[in-house]
């Protein structure tokens, strides 16, 4: 018996009856003894170095002909000990780490850590910073979905998709560079707000992108949405029911592709999501194609959110972009030449780091891949006692065994790809 989803949030017609989660280990699909007795079961290693595994994912696959009879995901090839390292750094130096955990949705990761620290500090963030964070998180969502779309389509043979998706991704990276000075791993969010004011010229450039992007999504959909080959490679594959998805902790596009209307931006609004108008796309089929449709629709909705953020931000010229709390936030640069007090604060924060009150906090946001959570524990000192990330990709891989039931080896690429995993985040 497993957890059930409330009726109101889930689909009308079940995707399949009962549960398909393997037992007793929910994440390992084992070959039946009768199958093994045939002597025709071949065990192969798929990865860790394989061009279509999205990084260093290793799958141990049992094959009977082309049928997959068993599968187990083996991870850890990219484990770099981020969490241990962060315990060793001051709070504000830690901000560079989360973005490297999920190197495709870096700004969402950056925000979840900064947001958790702010929650523990109970720090008020100025509205300009909140709106700019919302804007950048949404641009980052489009960026992440484009990388997913380009690479997954590439793996299924749609090579031109890759070039189209990376064309628009390039424009987003240019926007990031304009704002922060870096194309990836921007470290633009500071505890208390933004590191710098929004540069002149960003709004018109961002508007140009917003005008262009919906047409680009139209292009992608023309290539794929009703493409016969694409439909045959994705429809009805990798089925996951709403109940199984919730029991397996799935979130983001995987959960919404299984017909559960669940998005933390709507159900538990953070940043400025409570005051923007957008739709949460939900598809009922629970297959690879449904997850693809969710991704496409989300890109359109993200453009709408970015436009609304721009409308607000354009009226906020001259407003502060970071909180004025001298114990946490670096004082303005020009004050260092005239104010002894500011110089002391600057020195203390840079050498010793600011202190975060004792306590523990779990802060979760909707990253492009689903629920991204950050647990931090502070002992009242200048360094975190413990940092833990709830990585949506890590959890998404738990569904592999359920999705691969009765699948063919060739479909494995489409199914695992549809989970949108980033191995940096899985292994941390």
């Amino acid at each position, binding site marked *: 018996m497993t957890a059930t989803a409330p009726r109101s949030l889930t689909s009308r017609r079940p995707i399949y009856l009962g549960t398909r989660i393997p037992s007793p280990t929910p994440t390992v699909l084992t070959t039946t003894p009768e199958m093994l007795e045939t002597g025709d079961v071949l065990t192969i290693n798929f990865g860790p170095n394989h061009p279509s595994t999205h990084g260093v994912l290793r799958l141990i696959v049992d094959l009977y002909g082309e049928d997959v009879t068993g599968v187990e995901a083996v991870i850890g090839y990219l484990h770099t000990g981020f969490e241990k*390292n962060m315990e060793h750094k001051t709070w504000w130096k830690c901000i560079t780490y989360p973005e490297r955990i999920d190197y495709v949705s870096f700004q969402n990761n950056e925000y979840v850590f900064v947001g958790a620290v702010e929650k523990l500090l109970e720090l008020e963030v100025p509205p300009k910073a909140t709106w700019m964070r919302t804007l950048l998180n949404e641009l980052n969502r489009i960026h992440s979905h484009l990388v997913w779309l380009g690479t997954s389509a590439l793996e299924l043979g749609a090579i031109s998709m890759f070039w189209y998706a990376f064309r628009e991704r390039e424009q987003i990276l240019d926007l990031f560079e304009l704002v922060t000075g870096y194309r990836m791993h921007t470290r633009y969010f500071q505890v208390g707000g933004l590191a710098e004011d929004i540069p002149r010229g960003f709004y018109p450039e961002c508007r140009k992108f917003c005008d262009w992007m919906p047409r680009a999504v139209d292009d992608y959909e023309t290539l794929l949405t009703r493409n016969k080959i694409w439909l045959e490679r994705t429809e009805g594959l990798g089925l996951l029911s709403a109940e199984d998805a919730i029991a397996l902790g799935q979130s983001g596009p995987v959960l919404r592709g299984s017909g559960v209307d669940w998005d933390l931006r709507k159900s538990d609004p953070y940043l400025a999501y409570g005051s923007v108008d957008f739709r949460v796309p939900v598809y009922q089929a629970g297959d690879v194609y449904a997850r693809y449709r969710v991704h496409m629709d989300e890109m359109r909705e993200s453009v709408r959110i970015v436009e609304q953020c721009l409308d607000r931000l354009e009226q906020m010229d001259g407003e502060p972009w970071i909180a004025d709390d001298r114990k946490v936030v670096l004082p303005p640069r020009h004050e260092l030449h005239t104010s002894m007090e500011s110089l002391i604060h600057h020195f203390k924060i840079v050498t010793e780091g600011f202190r975060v009150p*004792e306590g523990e906090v779990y802060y979760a946001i909707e990253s492009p891949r689903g629920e991204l959570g950050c647990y931090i524990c502070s002992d009242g000192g200048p360094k975190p006692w413990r940092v833990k990330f709830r990585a949506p990709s890590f959890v998404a891989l738990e569904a592999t065994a359920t999705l691969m039931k009765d699948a063919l080896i060739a479909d494995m690429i489409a199914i695992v790809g549809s989970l949108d995993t980033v191995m940096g985040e899985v292994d941390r």
Partner: protein
Amino acid sequence: MSDWDDVPGLREERVHVGETTLVVDAGDLIEAATYLRDDAGFNFLSDITAVDYLGWGDEGVSGYLGTAGGRDLNTPMTQGYQAVPAAKPKRFAMNYHLLSVSEDARRIRLQVWLDEGERVPSVIPVWPTADFHEREAFDLMGIAIAEHPNLKRILLDDDWDGHPLRKDYPLGGEPVRFSGEE
């Protein structure tokens, strides 16, 4: 009178920065978890986090314990506390972050305290998603999970020594190739 009085085996209830923490004993965990899932609507397990509190509140400790060179108050960024933090009941804490996937989107933290060598039952029967999380807690923190069907290392090599996220495991503990220290 609180909303959580009916939770089986409830030892303590805390609210801090808007987050509720319920503490139960390891022996009552499955019962409490089942109650929270079936009767309180927490159908979604977000995350399991194990925390090591070894050295919590000791002078000069903020980060980890025990390197070759040690750490002292004169090293930048290791200054002491403004106030010594409150003592913890045992060395390890297992935190189960629960979410209710429903209209009200509530969250709660279920906490279990453990000493070295104490075992905590697996919550896979309640939430199947616990599988990887528990393997990670075992791998990196050395938490013994009882009745886990597939308890083996997940992120590190099978022959790895020790559990790196423990506070007595030094940063940079492994030898660096060609550094002259091998």
